[in-house]
């Protein structure tokens, strides 16, 4: 079961968030439940066993000696057993004033208080993602890449293809909504991918599920996002 914790100092908001969570779990009948809701970060830390996957909704400004960001850090430190932990921050700031923060903190999402309707929808989405990542077989199917010091996770099923650049040790990954350049070699990336992927050329790894068409004469393959990759001479679709 996915345990869900809420830490919010404003009582009205705490109630609202708890309701949203319970409602969603009940209506969708998912394997998740609201475990604990509090205003006190310390009691949250002692309440959390760390045995099950957990989703935390943390207010950034807690009006306590530790704020939501430090609390998140403490949770990660305490999580020595390595169970799955997902953190969502709740804040009054607008999306745009949080860029540095979003970049530096590894969070599942940010909920902004100015729009209660969207919060309800987003909570549902986050619970779904957390459930999928903790229990489904796809959970391991995430590629971890690094851009300098930053770690980025990309779901394998989203990847369309990965290519080399003119520079050594630099690759480019393409999904429908994202193009990402990162450090690495195709060979080591290839080892981390599953059977859906194929090294079709010395400069390309493609997702075989994302092929739109193959041009045998020109030795190219067109992907679902309309980009073209090269094929090596003896490559065959298996």
């Amino acid at each position: 079961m996915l345990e869900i914790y809420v830490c919010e100092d404003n009582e009205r908001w705490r109630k609202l968030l708890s309701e949203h969570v319970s409602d969603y779990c009940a209506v969708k009948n998912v394997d998740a439940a609201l475990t604990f809701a509090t205003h006190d970060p310390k009691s949250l830390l002692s309440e959390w066993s760390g045995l099950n996957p957990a989703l935390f909704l943390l207010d950034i400004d807690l009006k306590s000696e530790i704020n939501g960001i430090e609390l998140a850090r403490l949770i990660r430190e305490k999580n020595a057993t390595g169970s799955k932990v997902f953190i969502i921050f709740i804040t009054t700031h607008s999306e745009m004033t949080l860029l540095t923060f979003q970049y530096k903190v590894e969070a599942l999402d940010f909920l902004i208080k100015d729009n209660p309707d969207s919060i309800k929808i987003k909570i549902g989405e986050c619970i779904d993602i957390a459930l999928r990542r903790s229990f489904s077989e796809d959970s391991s199917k995430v590629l971890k890449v690094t851009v300098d010091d930053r770690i980025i996770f990309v779901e394998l099923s989203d990847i369309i293809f990965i290519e080399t650049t003119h520079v050594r040790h630099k690759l480019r990954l393409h999904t429908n909504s994202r193009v990402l350049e990162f450090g690495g070699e195709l060979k080591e990336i290839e080892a981390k991918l599953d059977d859906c992927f194929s090294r079709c050329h010395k400069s390309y790894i493609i997702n075989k599920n994302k092929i739109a068409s193959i041009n045998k004469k020109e030795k190219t393959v067109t992907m679902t996002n309309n980009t073209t990759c090269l094929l090596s001479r003896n490559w065959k679709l298996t």
Partner: protein
Amino acid sequence: MNFILCLSLFLFCIIMMLCGENMSLFKIEKKKELKYNIIAVVVSLAFGFILGFSGIVTDLSPEVFYLYVTLYLLIMLSLMHKNIIKGFFASLMSGLTIFGINGTTTLFFRIIGQEELIEESILWLITYIIFFAILVSFVLIFSRYLKKRIDMNIFNNKSIYAITAISGIMIILSYINYRGDFLDSTGDIMYALFFISVILLFVIIIKNAYKENSLKTERLITEASRKYIQDLEESYTAMRTIKHDYVNIMSSFKLYIENNDMAGLAEYYTGELSEMNKELLGYDRLIGSLQNIKINEIKSVLIYKCSFASHQQIEPTIEVRESIENLGVSTAIVCQILGILMDNAIEAILEAEEKQLGIAVIKNPNSKTFIIKNTWKQQKIAVDKLFELGFSTKSKDRGIGLYTIRNYTEKINNLYLETEIDGIYFTQTLTVKDAQ
């Protein structure tokens, strides 16, 4: 000697056909083709009849045949081409191909030492057709190969026209000359000239192809650099204006104070100044939030772009929490990339319903990260599409911009760009690694 000539003639034919094909045939509208064909046939037939009846030509010798074909091609291709002069050259090139093949065939018989066979017209015609077929298939394959790799515009070049004309005259003169003695001195000179011009043609074409290729990327980068310099200049002018305004305001204050006119000062401050003040305060705020950036060029590009955004009723939020001092990539390139990203962001926001722009510059242990996040008019589009040359949802620049950036990130070690679409938000994250 004959062998070399034969080869260069053949080469000449190839070039002529490539030029001709590139210049004309691919620009014809299919519908008009038939119409032009009919006109050309009628005109050349009429010409033939006039020649026949006037007694100038009495029998249908090969010369008349070539004349017909050349005339036909000349008329048809000139008509088909939008630009008559270009069309004329294109068809002249095709016409020259026919003379060239004729010469090649004749020389072929000469090489195999069967000169008397030239008179056997059937055998001659068969050889002629074989040569022509080889030529056509060769050109077809060759031009397909070329088109994949280079811009075919290289054949549209004045020096190529000039040399074509020269070698064309040479080839016709030598053709007329072939009735006489091939080996007399004028013939030799003509052939030598012809040979040289073919080599020249070849050299020019190869040089052009090479130049055109590197020019294409260079042109794009120059364009982006030009915009970057323009940005810098404008941001400098803006700063100077502010300084000037400040001095003016201060001196007016001084006047009021010297006269001890507090009422007047208050009036000036709330009335005349308020509009100007707003703008100046805006600048102040911008400069304040960017003061942690210690690289002047980058700071001024961001200030300029942000103030430009403010003029478009976009209020950018800027986060620079740590001091940004040095980058592992040339400042000019980073400035240029940021300029392009900001331009794109502002342009996209203007089309969007909700107008938000966020900029963050972050210092990491081994790198600096620039984040530009903006709202946009949500579209169902793959991110890759945006990087295609010339692609843009609206303006031309955006297509060039992202393509230019891709050119840099493709080749420069320490640059990493991440482009992400998430609903109404569009985020560009540029990571610049520090120099090792």
